[in-house]
C-alpha cells in the first residue's frame, strides 16, 4: 500500500517537475548566453527529479513495485518456476533452447575425445607398436558402440513403448492443463492448502529471533500455491517431475549394444590384467578408453528420430503453459527486471537484482528494527545512550602512577581478614576511577564507535598536520627535512598499511585511529602548506611595515589566509577517512559500521549491507554539511582574498 503510494507520488512528481522545468525555460527571460554561470543557478525541481529517479530505479530493480502492485505475483511465479525447473532436464535433451540434440553433442564430444586419445597413443614414446595397435583397436571398438545406439532398427520395442507412454502422459497433461478446474482439487484439499497458505505468510516477511536479538534472513517467496493459477502450475510441476525421473532412468540399451560393451570391457580388463608394472602407461590409456565407453553407456543417446514425438509434446506443453500464464508473463517481464523468481526444489527465491538489491520497504522495516536498542546488531545497538559514571572519566584522565609515587604502602589485610583503607589506597581508588559520582549519559553503539574513530583520526591529523604544514610553508629547513618523508608516504594508499596495523598496533581502536590519522595527516599537511605559501606577499609586507611581530604576522595574516585551504583539506580528509574506516573495521572488529557490513556479508543479509551503506552515506553527508556551515560562518573572506 505504502509502496504503491510512493511509486505513484514519485511518477507524478517526476512528470510534474519536468513539465515545470520546461515551462520555466519558456517563460523565463533568458539573457544569459551559454557559458554564463547564471544559467546553472536555481533548479530545485531538477533536484526532485534526480532523487526521485534514484528512488524509482531502486524501487524498480528491487522489485518493490511488483510487490506493491502485485503482491501475489511472486507466489504465482514461484509455481511457474517449479514447472520450468521440472522441464529443465527434459528440455535440455532437445534443441529447444539449445542448438542441437544432447545426443548429437555427446556424440560429437566423445568422437573428439576418441580422436585425441588416438593421437596421444600414436605419439606416445612409452608404448610399443603392438600395444599401440591393441589400444587403437579398443578405440575403434568403442567408436563402433555409438551406431548401435543410434540405429533405429536396433532399438528395443520396450524402450519405444516407454517413450510413447511418456509422450502420451505429457499430451494428457497438456490437455488437462488447459481446463479451468485442473488439477481437480477436492474441497478438503483446498481448505488444507489455504490453511497452509495463511500459515506461510506473505512475500518478504521479516522475523526477529526473540531473545537472541539476531535478525534472520527471511526474504521469503511463499512456496504453497495461493491462487488457482498457481495451483495449476504446482500440480503440473509435480507430474512433470515424475515423467522427468522416468526419462532419466530409461536407458536405450539393446542386446547387441549390451553384448558389445560387455565384450569390450572384458577385453580391456583382461588386457590390463596382463600388463605388468612397467607398462603403466598402456594400462592408463586402456582405463581412459573404458571411461569413454562407460560415458557412452550412461549418456542418453537415442536414434535421431526416436524422440521427435516427445519433443513435439514438450514444445506443445511449453507453449500452453506460457499462454496459461497470461498477464503474469508481462508482470514477470516488466516488473521483475534483471532476474526472476527461481525454484529450487523445496524453496523459491529471488534471483537477480531482487536478491542483492533489497526492497526499500524491507530495508526501512529492518532499519527500524535494528534501530531498537534491544535488537541492534550482534547485541550492540546502532546508536544508543549508556549511563556512565563521571568517576570513570576521572580515572581515565588521571595517571595511575600518582598513587604509586606517594609515600607509604598499600593496605594489607589483617589477620582477621579485614582490609583497612589508608590514604595511599584511597588515592589509588580515585586515580583508577573506582568510586561513585553522578552519572551522565554517554552515547555508544556501532554508529558512535565509527564516528568516534573518524573524529579522533581527524583531530590528531589536524593537530599535527596543520602546524607542520604551516611550518613547512614558511621555513626552508622544515620544507627540506620533512618533504621527502611526507612525499614518500603520501601516495601510498592508506589500506596498504592495513596488514601491518594488526601486528604493530593491535586490534583495538589504536590501530584503526592510527590508520585514519595517517590518511588525514598528509592531506592536512599539504593543504596547510599550500595555504601558507599562497599568502600574498603584499599583505605580509603591509603587516610588517605596520610593525607586526613574527608571531603577529603568523597569527593575523598567514593563518587566516590559509584557513580556507585548511578547511577544504578537512573536507577532503573526512571523505577519505570514511573510505578507509570501513576497510579498517573489516580487518578486526567488534563494533562499527564496517564490522556490521562485514558480518552481514557472511550471512547474506543484503538489507543490512544496504543499511550500512546508507548510514555511511548519511553520516558522510552530515559531516560535510556541518563543515560547509562552519566554513561559511568562520571564514567569510573565503574566495575573496
Amino acid at each position: 500500500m505504502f509502496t504503491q503510494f510512493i511509486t505513484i507520488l514519485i511518477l507524478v512528481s517526476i512528470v510534474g517537475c519536468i513539465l515545470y522545468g520546461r515551462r520555466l525555460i519558456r517563460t523565463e527571460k533568458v539573457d544569459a548566453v551559454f557559458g554564463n554561470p547564471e544559467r546553472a543557478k536555481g533548479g530545485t525541481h531538477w533536484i526532485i527529479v534526480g532523487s526521485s529517479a534514484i528512488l524509482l530505479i531502486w524501487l524498480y530493480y528491487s522489485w518493490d513495485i511488483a510487490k506493491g502492485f502485485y503482491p501475489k505475483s511472486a507466489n504465482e511465479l514461484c509455481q511457474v518456476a517449479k514447472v520450468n525447473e521440472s522441464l529443465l532436464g527434459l528440455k535440455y535433451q532437445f534443441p529447444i533452447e539449445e542448438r542441437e540434440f544432447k545426443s548429437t553433442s555427446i556424440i560429437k564430444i566423445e568422437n573428439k575425445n576418441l580422436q585425441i586419445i588416438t593421437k596421444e597413443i600414436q605419439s606416445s614414446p612409452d608404448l610399443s607398436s603392438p600395444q599401440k595397435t591393441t589400444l587403437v583397436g579398443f578405440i575403434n571398438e568403442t567408436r563402433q558402440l555409438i551406431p548401435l545406439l543410434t540405429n533405429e532398427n536396433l532399438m528395443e520395442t520396450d524402450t519405444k513403448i516407454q517413450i510413447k507412454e511418456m509422450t502420451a502422459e505429457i499430451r494428457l497433461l497438456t490437455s488437462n492443463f488447459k481446463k479451468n478446474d485442473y488439477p481437480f482439487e477436492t474441497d478438503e484439499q483446498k481448505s488444507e492448502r489455504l490453511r497452509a497458505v495463511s500459515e506461510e505468510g506473505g512475500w518478504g516477511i521479516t522475523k526477529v529471533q526473540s531473545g537472541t536479538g539476531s535478525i534472520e534472513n527471511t526474504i521469503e517467496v511463499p512456496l504453497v500455491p495461493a491462487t488457482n493459477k498457481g495451483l495449476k502450475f504446482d500440480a503440473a510441476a509435480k507430474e512433470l517431475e515424475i515423467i522427468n525421473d522416468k526419462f532419466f532412468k530409461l536407458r536405450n540399451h539393446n542386446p547387441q549394444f549390451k553384448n558389445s560393451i560387455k565384450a569390450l570391457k572384458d577385453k580391456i580388463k583382461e588386457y590390463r590384467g596382463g600388463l605388468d608394472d612397467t607398462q603403466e602407461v598402456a594400462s592408463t590409456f586402456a582405463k581412459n578408453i573404458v571411461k569413454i565407453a562407460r560415458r557412452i553407456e550412461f549418456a542418453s543417446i537415442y536414434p535421431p528420430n526416436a524422440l521427435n514425438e516427445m519433443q513435439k509434446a514438450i514444445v506443445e506443453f511449453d507453449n500452453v503453459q506460457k499462454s496459461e500464464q497470461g498477464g503474469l508473463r508481462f508482470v514477470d517481464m516488466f516488473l521483475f527486471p534483471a532476474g526472476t523468481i527461481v525454484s529450487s526444489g523445496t524453496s523459491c527465491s529471488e534471483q537477480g537484482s531482487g536478491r542483492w538489491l533489497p526492497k526499500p520497504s524491507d530495508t526501512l522495516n529492518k532499519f527500524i528494527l535494528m534501530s531498537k536498542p534491544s535488537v541492534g546488531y550482534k547485541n550492540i545497538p546502532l546508536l544508543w545512550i549508556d549511563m556512565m559514571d563521571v568517576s570513570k572519566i576521572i580515572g581515565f584522565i588521571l595517571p595511575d602512577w600518582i598513587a604509586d609515587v606517594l609515600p607509604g604502602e598499600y593496605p594489607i589485610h589483617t589477620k582477621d581478614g579485614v582490609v583497612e583503607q589508608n590514604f595511599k589506597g584511597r588515592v589509588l581508588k580515585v586515580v583508577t576511577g573506582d568510586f561513585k559520582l553522578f552519572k551522565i549519559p554517554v552515547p555508544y553503539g556501532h554508529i558512535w564507535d565509527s564516528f568516534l574513530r573518524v573524529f579522533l583520526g581527524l583531530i590528531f591529523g589536524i593537530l599535527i598536520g596543520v602546524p607542520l604544514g604551516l611550518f613547512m610553508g614558511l621555513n626552508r629547513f622544515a620544507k627540506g627535512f620533512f618533504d621527502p618523508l611526507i612525499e614518500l608516504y603520501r601516495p601510498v594508499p592508506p589500506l596498504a598499511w592495513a596488514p601491518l596495523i594488526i601486528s604493530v598496533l593491535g586490534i583495538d581502536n589504536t590501530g584503526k585511529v592510527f590508520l585514519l590519522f595517517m590518511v588525514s595527516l598528509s592531506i592536512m599537511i599539504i593543504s596547510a602548506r599550500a595555504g601558507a605559501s599562497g599568502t600574498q606577499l603584499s599583505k605580509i609586507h603591509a603587516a610588517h611595515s605596520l610593525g607586526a611581530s613574527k608571531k603577529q604576522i603568523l597569527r593575523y595574516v598567514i593563518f587566516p589566509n590559509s584557513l580556507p585551504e585548511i578547511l577544504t583539506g578537512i573536507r577532503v580528509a573526512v571523505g577519505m577517512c570514511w573510505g578507509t574506516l570501513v576497510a579498517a573495521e573489516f580487518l578486526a572488529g567488534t563494533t562499527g559500521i564496517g564490522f556490521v557490513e562485514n558480518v552481514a556479508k557472511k550471512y547474506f543479509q543484503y538489507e543490512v549491507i544496504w543499511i550500512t551503506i546508507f548510514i555511511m552515506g548519511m553520516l558522510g553527508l552530515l559531516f560535510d554539511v556541518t563543515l560547509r556551515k562552519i566554513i561559511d560562518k568562520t571564514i567569510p573572506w573565503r574566495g575573496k582574498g
Partner: protein
Amino acid sequence: MRKILSFILGSILALNLTISVANSAAKEVRVAYFLEWPSPNLEDMQKKNFAKALGVPVKWTNFTNGGAMTDAMLAGDIDISYSQGLVPFINAVKSKAPIKLVDIAMEYGMGGTTCVTSNASGITKANATELEGKKVAVPLGTMAEYVFDESMKVVGADRKKMDIIQMDPEEGAAALVSGDVVMACLFGGNSIKAATAVGTRLLTVQEARDAGILGIDITSVTTKFMKENPEMLRTFIEVTHEANDRYRAGKSDMNAMSKASEMKVGDMKETLSGFKFLTPAETKQSMTKGNLDAFLKGMGTPRGNVDTSFLPL
C-alpha cells in the same frame, strides 16, 4: 530530450537482458576449491583426469571461504563447489539459495579447524571460563564458528560474555601472536601452524573427537547444473570417490596433491591425517541419518536440500 530518453530505455533493456541470459550449454564445468585444504581428488585435478572423465574441460578456481563460493555459484560462475564448509552452505540455503548438497567431501576432527589459546594467557581447558570477558578471534559464518560454539559448550564457558572479534584465520593468528586476543579459532594449515607456535589447542584432536565436534565439508552444486547435467555430476562424484579409494589404499601421488594444494608435502600429510574421506556407503549413511543429518538438523537447516542420488553406490 528524445536522445536521453532513448538512451535510458536502451540501457534498461540491455541491463535486463544481460542478467537474464546467463550460461547456456555446459561446454566446460567450473569447479571451486580451496588451497591449503588437500584432498585426494586434487591429484586428478593436477593430472587433468577430471576433464578426461567428464569429456569436457574442467576449470578449477580457488576460493578463500565458502561464502564466496556460494556467491560465485549464484552469479553463475561456478557449477560445483568442492569441499565447501557446511556452515557456509547452511547459511546459503537459509537465505534460499538454489544450491544442493550432493556429496560429503570429508569429515574432519579439530585437526583442520580448531581454537588455539595463547600460552601467555595461561588459559587451558581446565580454566576456560576465564575466557569470559576477554577477546577472542573467530571467523564468523564459517566452520570455525561452529567449532568455537561447540568447544565452548564442552569447556563450559559462556560465549555471550566474551568479546568476539570477527577475524579471518590469517589475521586471527597474527592477533594471537601479538597478544591482542587470548584465543583464536582458525582453519588452514599455515594459520594453525602460526598460532600453535605461541599457543596450544584448547581441545586436543582426540578430545574434540570424543566430544563429537566434527567438521564436515561437502560438495554442493547449483540446481541448474544438477538438472541439466546429471551424468556429469555423477561422474565428478565418482572420480572423487575413486581418488578417495586410492588414498585409502595408500596409492595417492602426494607430490601432485601438494602441488595442487600449494602446501609442503609434510604439512599436507599432517593436515590430511585429521581428515576422514568416507566411502560412498558411509557418505549415504551420514547424509541420511548420520553426522551430516544431525548437523543439519542441529543448525535448523531447511529440509530437502540434500540429494543422495548421485553417489556411486
